[in-house]
């Protein structure tokens, strides 16, 4: 019988302890800097190297490039850039391979919508998603190639 009363003591003690639950959605949850949320995309930095689309494990990134409008400059600029958040698993590999930090993670995590179509985010939307951008990007990036 003692064990039963001991347990009752523990539960009674916990009754007055501060509550640990959060009042979401009234108070938004603050995510740490490294949190992998919805990506922000900066078209000006993108060099259309296609690495993000290639590394993506779920093939949710599709992009097309076009010739640089300035004929003196070489290379391409980005034309369209879509991420399908129906299948994106926010694994962070696209930002890891991006050589110019054109695509980076933000702290935004709310993706619920009313339709599947709304989950297909285009370049404009991703560019406008510029709040709470992750700061800690390059410093701890895996150093590949034995530098």
């Amino acid at each position, binding site marked *: 019988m003692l064990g039963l009363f001991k347990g009752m003591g523990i539960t009674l003690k916990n009754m007055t302890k501060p509550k640990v639950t959060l009042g979401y959605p009234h108070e938004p949850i603050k995510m740490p800097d490294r949190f992998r949320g919805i990506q922000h995309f900066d078209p000006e930095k993108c060099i259309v190297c296609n690495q993000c689309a290639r590394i993506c494990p*779920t093939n949710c990134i599709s992009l097309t490039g076009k010739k640089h409008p300035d004929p003196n400059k070489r290379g391409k600029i980005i034309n369209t850039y879509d991420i399908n958040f*129906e*299948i994106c698993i926010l694994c962070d590999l696209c930002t890891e391979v991006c050589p110019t930090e054109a695509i980076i993670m933000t702290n935004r995590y709310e993706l619920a919508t009313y339709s599947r179509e709304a989950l297909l985010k285009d370049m404009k939307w991703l560019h406008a998603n510029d709040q709470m951008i992750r700061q800690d990007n390059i410093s701890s990036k895996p150093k590949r190639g*034995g530098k």
Partner: protein
Amino acid sequence: MSEEKEAKKPAAPKTPRAAQAAGRARPVPPRGRAAGKPKEEKPLPPSPKQPVVDGYAKLIREKISPEAVESAFINQPNDHLPTLVIKKEFWIQVAELFKNQSDLAFDYMQNYSGVDYETHLEVVVQLYSMARGERVCFKIKTDREVAKLPTLSNLWSAADWNEREIYDLLGIDFEGHPDMRRMFLPEDWVGHPLRKDYVPLDEGV
């Protein structure tokens, strides 16, 4: 730290295992870039486990049949794992011998998987002996068209579901299995997905 330990044995992990696989004619894999700094092809230092695997092979040849062992070698990168390729006709006898003989006593099945090599199917069984702390790996090849192997479920109960899984995904029929049904996929599924020539019914998401 296993990686460090291996690194101390020079060249051991970086050398293609096929070199020892006397019985298995395999091309030397492309190396160099993948393994970091290119290194000279050196003859392998003999593995400390070499006598063990030779002993196993000898035992099988003596006790069961001289033809039972197709090849026996040490998988050096994999922590010097003694590996024996057994002909499927003798496989069940070999398994019984290795489980029941008291000085072998491989009573624990660590892993049981199947591989499709396009030319043939293969099951790989890793056994462990709790009493002796020894590991051994068996490989048994079977034909792709008539994929049949004897069941191990009478020896290790763990083989039961694993064989069903292999049957489901690779289409190897285990003869004598008490309940040879698909494990994961529905009964009316067509094909065995882990075969290399399997065509998915539903392309893309």
